[in-house]
Every structure is written in C-alpha cells, then in structure tokens.
C-alpha cells in the first residue's frame, strides 16, 4: 500500500499505519453554476491520531466528512479507507466498509427517539451480522466507556443533550472502527457539555481510537494534537502531530 501525499502536508510519521488518505480529491456539484466544494485535497490520518479539521461555513467541511466517510464519492482523486481504495468498491461494498471500519458522530445525535440508550448503541452494530445478544453486550461495554453505565435503559428522549451525544459517541465506538468521524459533535451542546464531550474524545483517543473531528470552532480544533485548516475547498494549513 503506497500513499502519495504532498510534501508539506504529509502527516503520518514514517512507519505509522495510515487508516485514511485522500489524494487530489475534488468534489464538484453539478449545479448551475457548478459548485466546487473541494479543490484538490491531500490529507492522511494515521492510526491513533486525533485530528481537528477547522474551517468557516462553506469551506467544504461537510463535503470532506462525507467523502472521508465514503457516504459520497469524489469527482476526481483517490480516497483510501482502511486499505480500501473506494474507486474499486461498489455501493454495497461501501456499506460493508462503513459497517466495519467507520464510526460517525453527528451534530444532531441522530438517535432513535423511542429506544433506549443500549438499543441505540447496539444499532451501531446492526448491519455487521452479529447476533443481538453480542450486540447488546458490546453496547453495554461501550456505554460504560463513555460513562453512561447508569443510563442503559433510559429512552433517548429522556436523556440530556450531553448524554445523547455520549450515546452517539458510544454508538460510533461500539464496532471498534478503524476511524471515527465526528461532524460538529459539540454544535448542539452548551459550553459545559461541549467541554465534557471534547474531554471524552481525548480520553477515547488515548485508548487508541483514531478520530477526525470537524468543527467551525478554532478553539476546539486547536486543543487537538493535530489541526488542519480548511478554506475554500483546500487544506490551508496542517500542523501535523504536535507532541
């Protein structure tokens, strides 16, 4: 597996296993006039990294997240996730790739309202083919990891915003994915809960989970070991690992 990454933005240290790489990625939406959301992005994430991608609205953050998460394909360029170049994969294969290798955390949490925290987290494994008992056992452990051991049987609507986002983080972690992509995970939370979620992300990254956090808030992004700035569809800067 070889990666061609531009000199100054080449980030993973030599020898580190790359779990996500984008090379020359562009994304154009065929509207009139066409919108060029990404204009040649080179970006790579090594196993165990915690990267903040920061940019103002309209900078292409969401498009970047969707392409990193294989929810969308680039117009040109290569995307490789967990060793799979998505060019070679069918739509069905991409679903399989997501179910095994990518975890998502969304700004709006996206929990099923009538279901318990445990069931919501277990749904993170729904399409993996694991049986329900195993899924629930793993969900239980994931909820303990995010500090919600006492909320297992609470339905989603009865949880606070911060708790809901913790459930969503647990759902993203439960399948031990190669990478977790978080889209404005603190966007719907107050300051106190935001800090708690950022703290949780740090803590889980310390346990070895690879994270890419997309945010418009430079303060949050700067707090991560590595920050990349996105503007007008291009990576403007990339600090690399600051350790």
């Amino acid at each position: 597996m070889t990666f061609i990454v531009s000199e100054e933005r080449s980030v993973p240290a030599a020898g580190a296993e790359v779990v996500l790489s984008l090379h020359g990625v562009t994304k154009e939406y065929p509207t009139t006039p066409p919108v060029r959301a990404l204009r040649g992005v080179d970006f790579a994430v090594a196993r165990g990294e915690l990267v903040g991608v920061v940019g103002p609205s309209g900078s292409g953050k969401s498009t970047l997240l969707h392409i990193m998460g294989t929810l969308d394909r680039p117009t040109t360029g290569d995307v490789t996730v967990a060793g799979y170049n998505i060019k070679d994969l069918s739509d069905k294969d991409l679903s399989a790739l997501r179910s095994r290798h990518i975890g998502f955390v969304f700004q709006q949490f996206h929990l099923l309202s009538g279901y318990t925290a445990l069931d919501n987290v277990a749904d993170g494994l729904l399409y993996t083919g694991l049986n329900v008992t195993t899924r629930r056992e793993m969900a239980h452990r994931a909820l303990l990891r995010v500090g919600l051991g006492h909320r297992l049987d609470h339905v989603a609507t009865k949880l606070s915003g911060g708790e809901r986002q913790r459930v969503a983080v647990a759902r993203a972690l439960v399948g031990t994915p190669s990478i977790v992509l978080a889209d404005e995970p603190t966007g719907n939370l107050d300051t106190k809960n935001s800090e708690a979620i950022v703290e949780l992300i740090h803590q889980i990254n310390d346990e070895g989970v690879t994270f890419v956090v997309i945010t418009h808030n430079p303060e949050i992004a700067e707090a991560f070991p590595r920050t990349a700035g996105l503007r007008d569809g291009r990576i403007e800067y990339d600090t690399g690992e600051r350790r």
Partner: protein
Amino acid sequence: MSRGNGLVPSKLHGTDVLRTASVGLHTRKLRAALSALGIVIGIAAMVGVLGLSESSKSDLLAQLDRLGTNLLTVQAGTGIGIGSGELPTEAAGMISRIGPVEQTSTISAVAANVYKSDYVPEGQTGGITVQAVDVNLLDTLAGSVADGKSLDEATATYPTAVLGSVAAERLGIRDVTGTQQIWLGDQWFTVIGVLDEFELNPDLDRAALVGMTTAEEFLDHEVVPSSILIRVDPAFVDEVTSVLAATASPQNPEEVQVARPSDALEAKEAADDAFTALFLGLGAVALLVGGVGIANVMVISVLERRSEIGLRRALGATKRHVAVQFLGEALLLSAVGGIGGVALGWAVTGVYANVRGWSTLIPPIAIAGGIAAALLIGAVAGLYPAIRAARLSPTEALRSA
C-alpha cells in the same frame, strides 16, 4: 461470507428486519393505528359480507333440509284464457296415482269472509281468505301449530277453524285459551288452533282454514280444488313436475300452474348473492382506499425520516436494507390491519348471525384471502416509498436533517 476484496458484506438478520420495520410503528403509534384502520375496515367489510352470506346460506340449506325441496304445487290459473280458478274434481286422485307421488293435499278456496264479530262492517275483511283444506295439510307443508291444535277428522266436520299466523294477528287472536269465536260466512266458528308461519306457502298465513266437510255442510261450498300440494320422492321431482299439468287437467293442461315453492327461497338467496357481490365490491374499494392511505403515510414517513435513513446508511445499511425496512413497515401495517379486519368482520358476523338465529360461519378462504389481500395491498402501497427511501443518497439524507 467474504468477498474477493476481503470485505465482510453488511448483513441484516431476519429478526432485525422485523425490528427495523417496526420502528415507525413504535415511534408513531397513533399514525400507525389510523393508517391501519383503512385496511381494517376494508377487510372487515369483505370478511363480514362473506361470513354473513355463508351463514345465511347455511341457514337456508338447513331450512330447505327441514322443509324439503320435494314439495310441488298445482294451481288453477285464473283469468280470461288461462282458466277459471278451478281444477277438475278428480285432479288430486289422478295425481296421487303418479308413481313417485307420496302425498297430496287439496285446497279449495271458499267464497266467504271472516270477521272478528258480526258487528264488523262487511267491507273490513282484513284480506283474510277462507280455505277448505284436507286434514293432512300441515303434514304435507311441514307446518306446525303455534297454539291449540290443527284440524282432524272430527273437527273437520264441525264449525271450527284454524287460523294462519297473519290471519290470527289481524283478528286479534294470540292463543285459543277460552273459547275464541270468529264470524265466518255469516255464522260463528270456533277457533281451535293458530298456526306458525308457513315458510313454503305464505298465502296460507293469511287464511282461515276449515275442513272440507265443514265447508260443504255449513258454508254451502262445492268442493272444487283450487290448488293441490304434492310431496314426491325427492329423486323424481323433475320427472313428476313435467307430467303434473297434464295429469291434473288432461283437457286444459295450459291452464295449470305447476310450482316448486323451495325455488322461491333459492331465488331469494340468489338475490342475496347479488348483494354479496355488491358489498364485496364496496369492501374492495374500502381496501383500496386503505392501501392509498398506507402509501400516503409511508411517503410522508420517508420524507420525515430522511435523517434516520442517512444514519442507517452511515451505519452500514445497503440500499436494499433501507428498502426492506420501509417495505416491511408497510407490510407490518397492512398485516395488523388485515388481522384486525378479520377479527372485526368475524365479530360483526357473529353478532348479526346471533341476532338472526343463524350459526356463525366464516369461510376459511375469507380469512386467508382477507389477510393475503391486506398484505398484497401493503406490498403495493409500500413499494414506491421503499424504493424512494433506498434511492435517497446518504449525504442528501443527512444534510436535510
């Protein structure tokens, strides 16, 4: 199962299909119930109609079984060119000589009126006729006595009468306790019995029946048969029917009307069948409307749940998994509607049949067909929304959230 590229395909277990299909029902219970209600009504209508039709048919069969289909009547035609209203005196004797004829009973219309008392004005006859009958009439017609007794060899020679059910009601006589008298042919007659309805010969319900001898001796009546009731061997009904007119009146067979009263009951049932078809049609329309309701709810549901669809795609659901989820939801809704409809249809049939004194019969085909029709409607209604949900791109679904 591992593919060439080493990826383990996304997989959704059968029980999980059911679970995801029930998410919508679980989170929006009232809406689910209301949309299933359309199907409930449609299926209930169809099951009810088929059940009622079957129950009434079984009642008719029981009735025919009880009354027999081997009763034939021979009646003299009345009117210019079609007869004088009289059969030849020897007609009954000749008919009884046809091999398969088991029993004959003669009725002779008497030109007399009946009143409650001699004070009642002459014009107020109440539409009650007077008929002179053989004593075996009740036996031949499979009739029964409501109160008192029927005519026998003894009472058929005295001024006594037996009243048909309608005649008794019009004369204000419910039972024969004490001495009930009526003013018949300008003299007092004693009522010795009131009969139940004649299911095979309703004309006699509106008659006062007297014995042949009584008619001759007290009413100056010359006994000429106006109609003859015939019981034949059930195996030879058609054969006997074909020779009856000529046997009863060899000279003017065209003036004789031959009928099989049980045909009238069967014709009534055939008319009911036409109504059954009509109501089935109405049930089908209700079902169709129910299906449109489900399709409508599913389309709205897909629009509302775009973020859920996006989430599921992000969690690894394939397009097929999403389609199966929404199709499954439509099927689940219609199955609930179908089962509810069968139950309701059954209950309605049970109550109505009970009121009518029938036994409740639901044809198994109505149950199976009802649920199958509901599922078919659900599948058709759910197909388009399911395809729409599956075609939604994950990014679009997540963006609209």
